[in-house]
């Protein structure tokens, strides 16, 4: 499903990723581990086509993320570690997700309610004015409402309370998620241990551990 081949990425001459080669099969649940600065976020941004590799390439279901960006990203739903200060209202953010990400606004609202958040009641509020937890719930709700084959979560539960984390685990563990490829970046290995099927550890931009669990 995801093929990363000989990926190098440098910034101002400093190598952040070095010769990363990974093949992530359909249905795998992969956890990326590593210290701060290990290159996890850079790898994810390369995977999303947001960074252009200095060498190598990334394809999603055969589509290179640089070159066939729309086809590749149509299959990916992403939740960042820190919700960005998007100035759209919730209504506008949902419209963006629905029209660009091909999902249903009703489904987003339904998912939000599952997290205990009534998105309808906040629809005219600017996204950036919501609390950290609310923003994270909204982004997770959008990700789950998209019919994406690949889901990427960067510390998805960092801003969630205990109830929110429990809801997230239930959604991830739902039967319809079995066939989906999921990539996590998290330091909370114990929280995801029942879900992940593979652990990839990065250190100084290289894969130092790749184990099926």
């Amino acid at each position: 499903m995801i093929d990363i081949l000989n990926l190098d990425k440098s910034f101002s001459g400093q190598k952040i990723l070095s010769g990363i080669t990974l093949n992530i099969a359909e249905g795998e649940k992969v956890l990326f581990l590593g210290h701060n600065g290990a290159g996890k976020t850079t790898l994810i941004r390369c995977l999303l086509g947001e960074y252009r590799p200095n060498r190598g390439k990334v394809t999603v279901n055969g589509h290179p993320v640089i070159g066939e960006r729309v086809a590749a990203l149509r299959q990916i739903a992403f939740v960042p570690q820190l919700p960005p200060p998007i100035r759209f209202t919730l209504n506008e953010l949902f419209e963006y997700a629905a029209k660009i990400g091909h999902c249903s606004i009703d489904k987003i609202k339904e998912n939000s309610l599952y997290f205990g958040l009534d998105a309808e009641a906040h629809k005219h509020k600017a996204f950036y004015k919501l609390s950290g937890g609310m923003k994270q719930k909204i982004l997770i709700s959008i990700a789950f409402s998209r019919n994406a084959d690949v889901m990427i979560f960067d510390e998805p539960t960092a801003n969630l309370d205990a109830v929110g984390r429990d809801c997230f685990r239930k959604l991830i563990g739902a039967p319809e998620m079995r066939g989906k490829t999921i990539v996590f970046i998290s330091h909370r290995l114990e929280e995801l241990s029942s879900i992940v099927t593979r652990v990839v550890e990065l250190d100084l931009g290289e894969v130092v551990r790749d184990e099926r669990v």
Partner: protein
Amino acid sequence: MNQLFTIAKLDFFESFRSRWFAGYTAVFLLLIVAIFLSGVTESRVMGFSGLTRLLLIFIQACNIILPIFILVTTVRTIAKERDSNVFEYLLSFPVSLAAYYWGKVLGRLLVIWLPLLLTIVLALAIGLVRGGEIPWRLLCLYTALLAFSSFTFLGIGFFISVSTKSQELALGIALFVWLLLIALIDIALIGFLIQKMVPDNLVFALALLNPVQAFRLAAIALFDPVLSVIGPTAYFLLDTFGSTGIIAYALLYLGFVGMLFLSLGFLVFRRRDLF
């Protein structure tokens, strides 16, 4: 195209709610009201009075403040989203970079045109209420000149925005560009020419290539076909192009510069890391 219009619409409404938009709109509307209240429409200078006089003063003010307003508000468009990681999320969706970039351009263009259009409508309303003759041809040409000029500075602003790594740097470059363009209008050019003995043709070329000067020449040519109120560079250009030629040149040149910088900006946007 659907993606482009979605981005344009969302950007338009987002900007519409922002404080800079309220300030930008207020400045232009208050400027017209202030010029009217100052009583200049009652006076006659060089044969101009009424709405024509009001517009003459307004367009001179726009020559200086329109570029800086548009540059300052536009350079932050892309730089701000990149700085604050908004890009990381919004561009993780399957949106084409062309739709995203040109959608932003379209949205922002509508946002900067709307207050200008409102200002023209307000000036027209003042003219109608006062009952004087409405200079329709002038009004239309003037509206076109404002539209093309704002397009130029939007293009320059977008180019700076995508080419710089931070909002602060983008803002600094925008101010420098504005100061440079203002410094290179006629009076400074003449001083430069006298001091440095620069070849005349180079000075005329600089005047023609400066969008602020092109705007100024056309703006004055609209009112004063012999360009009696500006300096020797203008005389040369008037001799070469004629007043209609100057207006046509200014509109085409402003459109060209805007499109050139927008296209260069898109190339940079498409070929670089997104943030």
